């Protein structure tokens, strides 16, 4: 693993910027759905900043991944929880990093197994580009290209502070 780079995106600043962007375009019935794990942390923060009182949905897309045949259940699955009726809702899907778009595809597939939403938009802290699917985000904290052999991960400290970490991908 290489040492973390100094000029990483400032996650905390991006959370505030993202909240302001979403706030300008928030409908009264908008529901937030975070994708485990970084997206859930982010969605929790956005809920607070936006003063959204509707229940937060969480998705673990492990069972919808398109690389199950190659990799199996490679990490511990958490339970998805959508504590509201998805049908007809205005939903903002929240994730920390947008990369290939495969996670978002899986999340949308899972969401549709709960019901047919009226609209889904996507909010991410960082768009690292290199998309492999025709997926884009409506709310983007910042665009920050990362080489394909590196990972950009969001971490949360014990006091709840969010920060990015960049490192070499572990060889498979």
């Amino acid at each position, binding site marked *: 693993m290489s040492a973390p780079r100094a000029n990483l995106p400032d996650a905390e600043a991006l959370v505030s910027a993202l909240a302001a962007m979403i706030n300008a375009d928030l409908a009264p019935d908008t529901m937030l759905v975070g994708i485990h794990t970084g997206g859930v942390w982010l969605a929790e923060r956005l809920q607070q900043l936006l003063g959204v009182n509707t229940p937060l949905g969480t998705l*673990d897309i*492990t*069972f*919808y991944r398109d690389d*199950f*045949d*190659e*990799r*199996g*259940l*490679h990490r*511990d*699955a*958490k*339970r*998805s*929880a*959508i504590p509201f009726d998805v049908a007809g809702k205005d939903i903002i899907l929240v994730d920390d990093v947008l990369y290939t778009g495969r996670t978002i595809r899986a999340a949308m*597939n*899972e969401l*549709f*197994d*709960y*019901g047919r939403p009226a609209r889904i938009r996507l909010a991410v802290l960082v768009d690292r580009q290199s998309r492999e699917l025709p997926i884009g985000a409506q709310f983007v904290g910042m665009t920050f290209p990362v080489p394909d052999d590196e990972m950009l991960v969001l971490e949360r400290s014990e006091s709840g502070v969010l920060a990015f970490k960049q490192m070499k991908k572990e060889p498979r």
Partner: protein
Amino acid sequence: MQRNLQIDDEGNLQHLLTIEGIPRALLLKILDTADSFVGVTERDVKKVPLLRGKSVFNIFFEPSTRTRTTFEIAAKRLSADVINLNVGVSSTSKGETLLDTVANLSAMHADMFIVRHATSGAPHLIARHVAPGIHVINAGDGRHAHPTQALLDMYTIRHYKKNFTDLRVAVVGDLLHSRVARSQIHALTTLGVPEVRVVGPKTLIPRDVETLGVQVHHDMARGIKDCDVVMMLRLQNERMNGALLPSAGEYFKSYGLTPEKLAYAKHDAIVMHPGPMNRGVEIDSAVADGKQSVILPQVTFGIAVRMAVMSMLAGSSSAN
């Protein structure tokens, strides 16, 4: 048993044949995975696409309704194609051997076999002969093992009691003929239950059972006293062709779980039964339908647990 038949060098489950030899961490991982599948079974669309395009063959050489059905539901909720074979009435009656049957099914591109057989070790035999990447789940073999039943029992216990390490658990009834009991005992001791008791008449308790780390009781009241969990076993009528018991009525008097006997256990003890129940033989209806009974939740949890096992097996073929 060959030690590494079920678990490969990377610690992934390749087959599920017996609880024996599965480390605690892996048992807990199965229960945790099952937990996330419980969420799926509570949704509108109770399906996930994990096993899409895979073929799961239910081969039952012995009749079963509940186990076969819950395996079928579990496989379908993972989007697999399920083929049910009641082999007892087809190939074997025409003289085909077990391995020939399996070879023929493999030629139909099976990805997973769920096997129940009256002979102990039949699923092991199949697991030794299938091609790599094909997985075998033991759905009950002879008197040997019934691992998914034990796993769903452990899931149920954890659901109601939160952990295993301060529990007193009694397994009551016909231990001698019970593959369920054997798997339950291995699971309970591996998960760290400090006190496991077996309760039943001398004629229905195997002589060497203490070597599994359990206490033996022949008196029901003493056996279930202060227990947190009472796991009843089915009195295996169909196997009782000797003179092991005077009569079902006598058995009920001594070992049938009635509200009066259950009062010896802790007041919040849960009562479990793997089914099918013989009401009025090993369990009284007032207990089976009472508020301490978790017999129906066991069935529901069984689906999520079987989904977890199947997805972990299917996922492990890819690791190679």
